[in-house]
């Protein structure tokens, strides 16, 4: 069964059709990319699948069960994690705390046990801190283990978002332009990181403009234009498809 199935999905904002009748499915263990020009509806698609927007029409299924109407936190409980194109870092917290928030659902969140610092909870919290630091090392943030989030450079914050999403222990990870705004060197690092994440067993859905990275990583690619599905297939199918060449080269 597909891990994620999107079926005839549409979203309209005040008459503007941002996503129109898009269908695709993502098998477990793959890296799946969504590409297309700016305004093609890629981020809207992500927002629909992760519960931030409610679709106008169509269905979204995780493990075959419809998730329409579920809130983002309910989707998180199903193992769906994501990062944001416009950074959503909690600047009022330490970098490490940002990652620790990511583990929210796996923790004992009882208010009273927390206030009176029950020993079991305190122990678990210390273990969590260790875990969060390991995740920061995993994404290459070993130099920022004690930093405040608001003192970190842009590139590091993008990785911090990935670490936070990984703290959820997701099955399905949505990365919204992880390489946007990065220099070539950093982009290469992110390329390697996404591969490492996929190798650890997380299914990755990627929105990205960097074609080299997309072609290097993706098992399958969905090309969108004006909110519609243009082409879907393996990277070779997509690379040589006349419509894609036309859309990208403007021919």
């Amino acid at each position, binding site marked *: 069964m597909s891990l994620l199935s999107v079926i005839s999905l549409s979203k309209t904002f005040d008459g503007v059709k941002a996503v129109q009748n898009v269908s695709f499915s993502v098998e477990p263990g793959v890296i799946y990319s969504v590409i297309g020009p700016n305004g093609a509806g890629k981020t809207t698609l992500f927002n629909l699948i992760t519960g931030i927007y409610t679709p106008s029409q169509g269905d979204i299924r995780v493990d075959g069960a419809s998730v329409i109407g579920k809130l983002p936190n309910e989707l998180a409980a199903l193992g769906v*994690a994501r990062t944001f194109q416009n950074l959503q870092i909690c600047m009022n917290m330490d970098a490490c705390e940002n990652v620790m928030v990511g583990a929210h659902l796996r923790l004992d969140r009882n*208010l009273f046990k927390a*206030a009176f610092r029950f020993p079991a909870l305190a122990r678990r919290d210390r273990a969590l801190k260790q875990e969060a630091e390991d995740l920061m090392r995993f994404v290459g943030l070993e130099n920022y283990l004690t930093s405040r989030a608001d003192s970190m450079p842009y590139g590091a914050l993008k990785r911090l978002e990935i670490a936070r999403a990984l703290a959820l222990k997701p099955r399905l990870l949505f990365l919204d332009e992880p390489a946007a705004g990065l220099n070539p060197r950093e982009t290469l690092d992110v390329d390697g990181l996404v591969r490492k994440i996929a190798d650890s067993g997380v299914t990755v859905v990627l929105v990205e403009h960097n074609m080299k990275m997309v072609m290097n990583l993706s098992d399958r690619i969905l090309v969108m234009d004006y909110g519609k599905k243009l082409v879907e297939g393996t990277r070779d199918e997509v690379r040589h498809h006349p419509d894609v060449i036309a859309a990208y080269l403007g021919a």
Partner: protein
Amino acid sequence: MIRRYLGLYVVAVIIAVLPFLIPNGFYLDLAIRMGINAVIVLGLNLLIGFAGQISMGHAGFIGIGAFASAVLPTHFGWHPFVALVAGAVLAGSLAALVARPIFRLKGHYLAMATLGLGIIVNIVLRNEAKYTGGPDGMPVPPFTLFGFAIDSDKHWYWIVSVILMVSVWASINLMNSPFGRALRGLHGSEVAAQVVGVNVTRYKVAIFVMSAVFASLMGSVTAHYVGFVSPSLADFGHSIELITMVVVGGMASVFGSLVGAVLLTALPQALATFEGWETVAFGVILILCMIFMPKGLVPTLAARFGGRRE
């Protein structure tokens, strides 16, 4: 781990030596009122500073606690302890009832709704004169526990001190726990908190109810300590005073709450020499503080002197 509680030890030392330095009853009374305000402000800061949600009607909850402790024992013969719990339950339930719909709203709407709630409580207290004594207020019987009446200022000093210490300790713990990080997280980015699984409405409601209960309990303590309650405890001006303490001391700062409460409780005394100008002076201090230290005293000073923020 030790550093986390460093400030708590400092507070403990101050509390322990203060009674020996205080020259007379006037200052003891001031110290007790500072302590009471500090606990309320701490609870409010969890809501405003840490979770980023405004309440402009918090004095209403203080009023509920204070009048529960005055009305229930006086008119219905309830034991003061039961009355105190009843007040807290009432304040908490009212907060919970109102919070669910309110916390779907943002910023200014939230300010409006909480403000309205506080004003309604205040007007009810003023109008139900048969029970509350109306605008003039009413006396409160002393608090008794196991047959002992707590009626000396010395007793109250130690009781308030213990409450304060426990509150500070619990607040530090709470904010460094999964619960607290979720709250601070939704302040930093609501959508980010949501996508990692935080049920944001539930957390906002929980902290709002908790700080309402804090306020109600301390309202009861105030009532028994002063021996008298009046509806002005619950008025808009008092709500504003409390927010001011949060903001001047430092949002999202546990020790900022204490500093804010101490300074602004003392301020009217210090300004009493200004003969009628105290309102103006209070206003000017507020404005200057917000313009030159928008983060509040404690965080600003901590940053200035390179200290780690608590």
